[in-house]
C-alpha cells in the first residue's frame, strides 16, 4: 500500500464579494510510496501549492480525501512536516530552540531534545550557530534550519513548498544537493513543489507536471537517474533529454497561464 494517497482531491475557492468561484485544483489522484522523492512541477498559480497545503492539513479540499497510511488527514499534524517558501523560523527562538519546537511540543525530555537538535544542526552544516537568532542568519541558512526543524520531528512525510524559491541560484543549487544527500541517507518520503525544471529533475525519482489553472496532473515521469546523484548529473545527456521533455510540457502550460492573464 502506498504511504500517501491523494484521492480525487479538488479545491474551489469561493468568490469574493459575490464574484465567481475559482476552481484552483481539479480532482487529482496521486499515490506516494514509501521513500519516494516526488517533485510537483507547475506554472505559478496552478494549484500545486494548494494541493500541498491540503496534504499538510492547512487547507481543506472541497472534494476528495487524503490518506496517510490509510488514515484520512484531518488538519495539520507532526507526522507531516513542512518547509515553506517564506522564512518561518520563530524569530524569538534561537536556532537550537527552533529545531526543538516540535520536540518540546511532544513533551520530550530536554536532554533528548538537545541530542536530536545537535545531530540535525550538524547535518545541515550549522554547527556553531546554535545560539544565533534567525535574523542573524542568511536566507539560505534560515531555510537549512527550517529543514532541520522539520526533520528533527521525524515526520512520516516531508512536504516542501518551493523552499528554495527565494534564494539566489548558487545557494539554491547547494541547498538542492544538501537536501538530496539528506534524503539519500534517511530515505524520508518527500513531496516537493517547485516551478524550477532543473530542481524538479535533479532530486526526484518521480516528477509530476501540473497543467495551468485549474490544475490537474498533466504528465508524470519516472526519473531513473541513479542515486547517489552528483551535481554533475545536470550536464549528462539523459538529464538534458528529461529536461527537454519536461520543459516542453511546462512551457505549453505557462503559455496558457500567460494568455489567461491577458
Amino acid at each position, binding site marked *: 500500500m502506498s504511504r500517501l494517497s491523494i484521492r480525487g482531491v479538488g479545491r474551489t475557492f469561493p468568490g469574493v464579494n459575490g464574484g465567481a468561484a475559482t476552481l484552483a485544483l481539479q480532482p487529482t489522484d496521486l499515490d506516494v510510496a514509501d521513500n519516494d522523492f516526488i517533485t510537483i512541477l507547475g506554472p505559478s498559480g496552478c494549484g500545486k501549492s494548494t494541493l500541498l497545503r491540503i496534504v*499538510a492539513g492547512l487547507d481543506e479540499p472541497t472534494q476528495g480525501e487524503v490518506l496517510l497510511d490509510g488514515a484520512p488527514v484531518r488538519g495539520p499534524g507532526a507526522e507531516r512536516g513542512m518547509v515553506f517558501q517564506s522564512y518561518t523560523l520563530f524569530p*524569538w527562538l534561537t536556532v537550537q530552540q527552533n529545531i526543538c519546537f516540535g520536540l518540546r511540543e511532544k513533551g520530550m525530555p530536554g536532554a533528548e531534545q538537545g541530542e536530536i537538535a545537535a545531530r540535525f544542526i550538524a547535518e545541515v552544516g550549522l554547527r556553531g550557530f546554535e545560539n544565533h537568532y534567525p535574523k542573524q542568519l542568511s536566507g539560505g541558512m534560515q531555510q537549512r534550519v527550517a529543514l532541520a526543524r522539520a526533520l528533527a520531528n521525524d515526520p512520516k512525510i516531508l512536504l516542501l513548498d518551493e523552499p528554495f524559491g527565494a534564494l539566489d541560484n548558487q545557494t539554491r543549487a547547494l541547498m538542492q544537493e544538501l537536501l538530496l544527500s539528506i534524503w539519500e541517507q534517511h530515505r524520508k518520503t518527500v513531496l516537493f513543489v517547485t516551478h524550477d525544471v532543473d530542481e524538479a529533475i535533479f532530486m526526484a525519482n518521480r516528477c509530476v507536471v501540473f497543467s495551468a489553472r485549474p490544475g490537474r496532473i498533466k504528465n508524470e515521469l519516472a526519473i531513473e537517474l541513479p542515486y547517489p546523484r552528483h551535481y554533475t548529473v545536470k550536464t549528462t545527456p539523459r538529464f538534458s533529454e528529461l529536461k527537454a521533455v519536461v520543459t516542453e510540457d511546462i512551457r505549453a502550460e505557462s503559455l496558457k497561464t500567460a494568455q489567461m492573464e491577458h
Partner: protein
Amino acid sequence: MKPLREVEPGAKLALGISFFVLFFAVWAAATLGGYVSKTFLADPITMFRSGWTLLAEQGFAKDIGYTVWRVLGGFVLAAVVAVPLGVAMGAYKPIEAFFEPFVSFARYLPASAFIPLLILWAGIGEAQKLAVIFIGSFFQLVLMIAVTVGGTRRDLVEAAYTLGANDWGIVRRVLIPAAAPQVAETLRLVLGWAWTYVIVAELIGASQGIGHMITDSQALLATDQIIFGIITIGLIGLVSDLAFKRANRALFRWAAL
C-alpha cells in the same frame, strides 16, 4: 543633512541637550529681561528656588509619591486585566466579535469626563483616582493588544501547526511570544497617557498629589510652583519611559536585531 541619514550618538545627545538649553535661555531672557509680567510667568531661577522650598519644607516629595503610586496602581490594574483580555480577543475571533464594538466605543469616552461620576460612586479617595487611570488606560490597552496579537504572521502559526502544536500551543508558544515586544511597547505608550489622566484626576477633589499642589498654587498665583510641578511630571515621565525602553530592549533582544 540627507533624508533618513543617521546622526552620530555624540552629536545626537548634544543636539537633544541643546534644545533644552535654548528653551531655558529664551524663557530666562523673557522673564529676567522683564518682557513678561511675573504674575503670569515666573523666571527659571525663582522656579528652581521655590521648587527646592517645596521639596525641602512643604513635603512635596510626599505629593510626588502619591501621584506615582496612583499612576502605577491604576495602570497595573488596567494592564493585569487588559493583557489577558487583549490576547484572548486577538487569538479568538468570537471573543473579539463580542467585546470589540463595546471597547471601541468605550475608548472614546474621555476619562476626565468620568471624574464627577466617579466622585459620586467612589468618593474623593484613592479608589476614584485609580478608577480614572483604569478607565483611561484599559480600553486603549485592550484594543491595541488585540490588534497586535491578531496581526501575528499567519505563516508562523501554520509552521507551528505542522510541527505538531495544538491550539493552546499556538496561543502560548506563537501568538504570545510573537506579540510580546509590541505589547510591551503599547504598555510603555499608554503609561505615558496615564500620567495625563492622573493630573486631571488630582485637580478635582484631592488633598495630596502633584495635581493638587498645582491647583493650590493657582489660588496663590504661584506660577513658579505650577511650572515646577509640570517639570517634575515631565522628568518622571521621561525617566520612566527610558526605564521602560531599556527593559523592553533587554527582555526582547531578538526584536531589535
